[in-house]
Structure formats: structure tokens, C-alpha cells
């Protein structure tokens, strides 16, 4: 659906994306302060920010390429290279560790046939170890884009992978309907 908007760089952000970026620039107090949300707009559409995307931002925000790369490379969630179709980010920090992350990671590695930090040859799955996802008491947990899966077990991982292989992203534990089920005092 996207059409070339930037003839010079060949960067093809959708009209909706360009609209969002223009709105962000109007809303934030300075152009530079709109940088992170503008990067998110591009991330959301492409999964990474290409060189052409950076050039597009330099002109939109009147920032140098160095300034944009500095930010792009500082934050772990921003990417400059295309990602695997599904990047599974499993928490390996302390709480998840004491709540059983190790066997869960081992199971993921076995089922995907790759180690933590690797991508499957067909680029369908990448497996990353990440720091605390803010689900410590609900761990072990993993994140797939905006979806958070909690209370992981081998069975739950099998279901998740089977579903993803069919191209279906299962309902996350943070989805609204499931909220009342959370453990609160």
C-alpha cells in the first residue's frame, strides 16, 4: 500500500506514517525531541530503519546523520537491519532465572534448533536473551513485538511455536480480556 514519497532516497514510508511523523513534529516542543517517536513510526512499519529512512529523518527533523545514528544505535529496540519474521526475546534476568527461565530457554533452543542469539536459516525465528521485561513475578516470560507471554512452560512454548509456524500470533497474556486473571493482592 505504501507509495514512494521521497524520490531522492527512494524511502517508501506510507502516507499514514508520514502523517504520523508530521503530527509528532507539531506535538513535540522541539524537532529533536520528536526523534524517538519518529523512529518508532518507521520501526513499526518496516521493523528496522534503513539508510534511506535515516536520510528521510535528517530532512524531516533537521538533524545530522550522526545524531540520528547515535540514537538509533544506543537503544536496543531500534534496529538498522531487517529482522527475522518472529524475534522471540526471552528474559534471562534474575527474577525469571529463579522462576525457571533456564529450562525454558533450553526448550526454546531445542525446538528452534538454534542457540540464544541466533536466527533460523529460513529467517523465520530469531531467539534473543534480553534483560528484565517487567514481568518478574509472572515469569519466565518472553516478548514478541508488542506481545508479552508470561508463566512460560514447555507446553506453552510448543503451542506458541506451532501457532507461529502457521502464521498466527497467539493471544498474549497482557491482552485486555485476560487482565482479571492476573495475580494481585
Amino acid at each position, binding site marked *: 500500500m505504501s507509495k514512494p514519497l521521497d524520490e531522492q532516497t527512494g524511502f517508501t514510508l506510507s502516507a499514514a506514517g508520514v502523517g504520523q511523523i508530521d503530527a509528532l513534529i507539531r506535538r513535540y516542543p522541539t524537532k529533536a525531541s520528536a526523534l524517538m517517536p519518529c523512529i518508532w513510526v518507521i520501526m513499526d512499519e518496516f521493523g528496522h530503519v534503513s539508510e534511506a529512512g535515516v536520510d528521510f529523518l535528517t530532512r524531516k527533523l533537521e538533524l545530522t546523520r550522526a545524531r540520528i545514528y547515535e540514537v538509533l544505535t544506543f*537503544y536496543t529496540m531500534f534496529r538498522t537491519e531487517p529482522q527475522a519474521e518472529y524475534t522471540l526475546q526471552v528474559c534471562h534476568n534474575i527474577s525469571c532465572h529463579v522462576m525457571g527461565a533456564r529450562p525454558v530457554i533450553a526448550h526454546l533452543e531445542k525446538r528452534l534448533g538454534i542457540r540464544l542469539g541466533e536466527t533460523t536459516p529460513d529467517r523465520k525465528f530469531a531467539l534473543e536473551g534480553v534483560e528484565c521485561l*517487567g514481568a518478574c*513475578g509472572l515469569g519466565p516470560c518472553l516478548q514478541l513485538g508488542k506481545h508479552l507471554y508470561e508463566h512460560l512452560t514447555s507446553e506453552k512454548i510448543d503451542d506458541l511455536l506451532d501457532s507461529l509456524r502457521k502464521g498466527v500470533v497467539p493471544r498474549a497474556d497482557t491482552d485486555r480480556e485476560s487482565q482479571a486473571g492476573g495475580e494481585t*493482592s
Partner: protein
Amino acid sequence: MSPSDYKILSKRFDRPDGHLLSVYEADGGYKALRMALTSLKPKEIRDVVKDAGLRGRGGAGFPTGVKWGFVPEGSEEVYFFVNADESEPGTFKDRYLLDYDPHQTLEGTIISCFAVQAKLAFIYIRGEFGWLVDRVQAAVDEAYAAGYLGKNILGSGFDLEVIVHKGAGAYICGEETGLINSVEGLKGQPKIKPPFPAVSGFLDKPTIVNNVESVASVPYIINYGAEAYKKFGTEKSCGTKLWSVSGPVKKPGVYEIPLGMAFREFFHDYLGGMVDGEELKAVIVGGSSVPVLPAAEIMNCNLDYESLANAGTMLGSGGMIVIPQSSDMVELIQVLMHFYFDESCGQCTPCREGTGWLHKIVKKLRRGEGTAADIDLLGHVCDGMAGLTICPLADAAVMPMRSFIDKFRPEFEALIQETAPAEPVSRWPRGEQE
């Protein structure tokens, strides 16, 4: 008092519709805002929050009303940041506040902004909470539509804009000056204080940064007054506190209890004790950055700022990590040192290099290649880091590292190979190790 009487912040946590404006209003929501805007002066709000003894819930425990008072009188342009970066390992309470009851935090934000006369507020949500960003935005949209945000709020003449800002995966952005830099469109690297943000922060203007839970506590204080709030807690640790509990206890989760409750009572009555077959070994009580306490020590503590400080640790963020007897403490500290090494922003040599060395030396010990001198070396590296950096991240690594050795030294010593050659180890940071 029964546990339900303590519920100031978590009252609507178990309601599936608690996030809706209509539910919040039916529960008396936004009454405090109306009162604040129509019958209180900014200074009166600052004073009542000061009198209530509310201390910052983000980690440092600095009195909220006092911090607000640092904004120079008559400042034209003031900014307010709600810190929802929540990336301290073990901490997951702010997400509950924003997910189950976003309007409580929003109402607190608007009142806080009025108290310091800020006209633009950012709610900085960590990037990993992508699922939460849309929900908070939905609540903000509802508040705009109802006239609680925007121009001339409730006819008071007070204007406020709120921007929900999504982070992108950097623990250090939780530090207030890193957070401000991040929103300025820079790397999230902290700045030397002073100047403190309250004097010169975002765009070099006075800026207040407060944790979600601090801000969420404000509507209750305005509604019921300082004395009512102080009924909860101890003399110096006032009010209630959310604890996020992880680890193999029967009922991990988020709990609101008055400050000062005995750990023993909380552990048995609320958490249900350990899961069957596990025994309590230790607790990191305030998020991963505070010193660990062995079971025998934590069992005699009360959960408030002073008691925990007396016991040699800190209340921190209230991220309570319960460690079972079956855990290998050296493995756990390796996990933590990896985290701090990964998250050091790299500006200060003692932090950038020190966290790396701590991680390397612990790994060496666990590979079975360590000597007794390596355990001492860990201490020396800590000496070269603590208090010597721009922000407290270096200390945040040193505190668990030192305490793990102090309290569980035999586990480190058990890894030392008697037969390994006693190589001479020069003192960090001058010489070469490993």
C-alpha cells in the same frame, strides 16, 4: 485494619474495567483534581504532599513535596515527567498502576503539574511495555475528551498537555537525567548533578521527574489530607507501598501494604511462604540494585525505609526478589553483573570498565579458573567504582556484588581451584587480569 483498608493505590487492580474513565469517576475519581484546581493554590498542594511525608517510590525515596519546592518560584516554563521506565530487575508494579488504573496516575499527574505549574508532561514508558503504551494513550485520550486535559481544565484557567513517550530498551533511561536526555532526542546518558533537573532539566528548564507510584499516591492525599495518609506506615515511612514479588513463593505478584509491616508477616500471610520443597535462602528486597539479605536477617526486618537501611540494605523500588535455597548465588550474581555491564551507558570509565571486569571475574570463577585473589579483586574493582561516577548505576552494580560476597563468601570460595597456579594479580584498574 484488614488488608482491604490498605488499598489506596490498588483498589481497582482486580476489576476488569478499572481502566475506564467511567469506572474511575464512579469511584470518586477526578474529585481531587476538581478540588485542587478550584480551591487550592499550588503552594498548598506542595505543602500537603510534604506534610503527608510521601517519599519518591522510584528508588531514592526523596520526599516528593520537598522536590517540588525546588522549582524556582515564578518559573515560566516547567516540565513534568512521569517515570514509567520500570526497568529495575524485580520491579513490575508501575505497569499494574498504568494497566489496571491509568486514570489514578493521570489524575495525580495533573495535580502534580498544577502544583509545580508545568504545562507539558511526558509519561515515559519503557519500550518493552509496547502493549501498555496504547492503553495509557487511550486513557489520556479519554481525559482530554472529558476536559481533564488540554486548555482551561475544569474552567480553572490551567492548561496542560500530556505526551505518552515510548522508550526503546535502555535501563539507564530510568535515571532521571538520562530520561530527560532521551526525550530531548539524545542518547539516554545521565548528566552530572548539580544542576538538578528541578532547576535545569528538559530543554534547560525546571523539570520534575517522579515515579508512577509517587504520582499515583497524590489524589488520595488531596482527597483525604496528610493526616489520613500518615495513618498508614511509620513515623518516617508514611503511607502504603506497592511491592512486586518474584521468586518461588506460593503467591508472587503485586501487593499493597502499609510501610513498616514485618517481613515475616508479609512473607507468610501474603506470599504464602515458599512453594513446596523450597526453603528461603535470601531476599533482594528493593530491586536488583540493593544489597542482598540472607533469610535470617530479612526475617527480622520491617518493610520500611529506616528498618531496611538499618539492616544494611535499601527499600529501593520495592522489587522483592525471593531466592530459594536451591539457587547458586555465584550464578545469580553473574546474571546481575551481565545486566549492569550490558546497561552501563559507557560515559564513565569506572562504570564501563568496572562492570565488565566484575562480570569477567565472576565468569572466570564459575569456569573453575579462579584463585583466592580473584575474590579480593572483585572487592578492589568495587572500590574503584563506588561513588566515582556520574550516576548511581556503578553503585547499583557494586551493592549486590559486595553483598553477595559478604553474605555468601563460602559459595565463591568453593569455586576456587586449590591446584590452580597462584598467579600474581595486579590491582585494577592499572594492570592486566585474566
